[in-house]
């Protein structure tokens, strides 16, 4: 760690110097926030589309009798309705959220609840319109981000760990688990776990969403046999759903870490570009302020 140990003596006190660092260029900031809007709308309209057929299968065609996952509703022994999630032979009672939830105050059989879908009520046609419009926005935004990121070297700096970082992999895990975040020079770059998770999201998960999405298009199938990459159209639909879950998990962890590692500094840097590096140093040290 760049910060030295605290020295205590009659004349020497530790100070914290703030150094401003321009961390996020405009294109990256714009791409980030456009992506936030796109992913939120794609997720919610996607759940709307899923609700039209709340079951997942593997292979080219659906096996209606034995889905791999299904979210539905049935009745308890006493006749009261319940929502259930069925996963590979196991049934879970999810009444209130999945399978059965309140719509305008009335219990309604629907896979994902109205607060999670776009539109809130069951409307596959409008859900599809939202989904495709923002799929285009997402793809165009993503392409601009990639071209800019690769062209300027921003992307490499952001997602490829440096050699010394790979050697510090274990200590980075330890730091995360104890919620200690880098300061000083180390805070100027993303840490190794951060880079690797961004790499997985940018290079694997988001492209997979586009590919599995296109694999479900009968028109695109006549251009390229994309379903074959995933074992069939229904497999592609299942992968699309699983990767959605992974992206939601990523966003939860991402937002949590933003909150824990200084929400004001992180938010400011993604809005204005400017990030503050805090540096503990001795007064005698060389000037570090901007």
């Amino acid at each position, binding site marked *: 760690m760049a910060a030295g140990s605290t020295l205590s003596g009659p004349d020497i006190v530790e100070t914290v110097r703030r150094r401003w660092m321009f961390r996020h260029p405009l294109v990256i900031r714009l791409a980030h926030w456009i992506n936030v809007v796109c992913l939120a709308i794609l997720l919610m309209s996607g759940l709307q589309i899923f609700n039209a057929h709340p*079951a997942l299968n593997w292979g080219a*065609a659906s096996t209606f009798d034995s889905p791999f996952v299904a979210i*539905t509703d049935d009745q308890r022994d006493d006749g009261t309705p319940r929502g259930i999630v069925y996963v590979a032979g196991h049934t879970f009672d999810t009444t209130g959220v999945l399978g059965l939830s309140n719509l305008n105050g009335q219990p309604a059989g629907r896979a994902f609840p109205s607060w999670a879908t776009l539109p809130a009520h069951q409307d596959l046609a409008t859900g599809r319109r*939202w989904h495709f419009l923002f799929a285009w926005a997402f793809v165009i935004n993503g392409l601009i981000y990639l071209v800019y990121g690769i062209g300027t070297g921003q992307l490499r700096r952001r997602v490829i760990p440096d050699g010394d970082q790979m050697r510090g992999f274990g200590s980075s895990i330890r730091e995360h688990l104890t919620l200690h975040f880098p300061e000083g020079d180390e805070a100027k770059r993303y840490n190794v776990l951060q880079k690797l998770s961004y790499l997985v999201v940018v290079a694997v998960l988001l492209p997979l969403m586009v590919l599995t999405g296109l694999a479900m298009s009968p028109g695109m199938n006549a251009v390229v*046999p994309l*379903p074959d990459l995933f074992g069939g159209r229904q497999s592609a639909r299942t992968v699309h759903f699983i990767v959605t879950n992974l992206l939601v998990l990523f966003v939860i962890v991402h937002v949590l870490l933003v909150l824990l590692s200084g929400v*004001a500094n992180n938010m400011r840097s993604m809005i204005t570009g400017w990030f503050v590096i805090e540096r503990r140093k001795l007064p005698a040290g060389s000037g570090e302020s901007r």
Partner: protein
Amino acid sequence: MKARPERPRLSIPKPHRRGFLTAAAGLFGVSALGGCDRFAASPTGQRALKAGEDANLFVQRLLLTPASLAKEFPDSQISPWFKPNGTIDPPDRAYKALAAQRFQGFKLRVDGLVERPQDLSLADLRALPARTQTTRHDCVEGWSAIGKWTGVPLSEVLQRAGLKPNARYIVFHCADTMEYAASEEPDEAEEKPTEKTANPGMESRPEGAENQASDSKAAGDEAPADVDEAAQGTPVRYYESIDLTDAFHPQTILAYDLNGQALPVSNGAPLRLRVERQLGYKQAKYVMRIEVTETLNGIGEGGGGYWEDRGYEWYAGI
């Protein structure tokens, strides 16, 4: 002693900023969610949302050549049960009468912008060149089923009729009543439930997971029963349309056989359109009449099909 002199300057605004940001994010979230549905309902919103699907048509038409074929599967992959969806037993008396005679009295009418209007019986159609294709049917809801279809390429029929120069669209008029247009007495409570017995060859199985598909073509259970039409208003029967690009595609056929047997009523007997590069609702069942037109205006509400007039996209390639 004042340790960390600059610390307070950084930390004091933090709670305020955090509170502000949280409140702003919350407000934005709530207003965005409610606002989205209002936006989608407005005319501007509807036009804006449609842009994505217009782009789908534009790009797919760029990428697809007339020779780009939908994947054909080996017969070993045929689905054991080809899920009948939408109308599975048309309630219409005229249709029931045709079905009772195994469609011997059936004539496919081909008219509109054609040089030689046609009336083709099933025997006439079976005498024309045939194409068999085992393809995957993709419902807009998300499920797929694989079936082997045999039928006459639509291009054969259109060539017999001869298109006039201003022909642009092929419209399919079907036998099945989806609903009744508003009339003096639009009392839907009087409708009888649809009989589910006459479903030869394919028993309709209740699907727990399917019960929420109420707004797409799964309206079979709610289809109007065979009742006195005059009391119900004008029946709105299923209709669909494609343009000449898809009409002359080699895999676009009027299918009379499914999996080597005469097409069952539940899957669209006597004739079902197959447009293999598009979704299920384009695959019109119970086709009675083919009308060649220059425009889709005047067909239903002008969207080009029953579901198109209810918000679904005319081009269903994705």
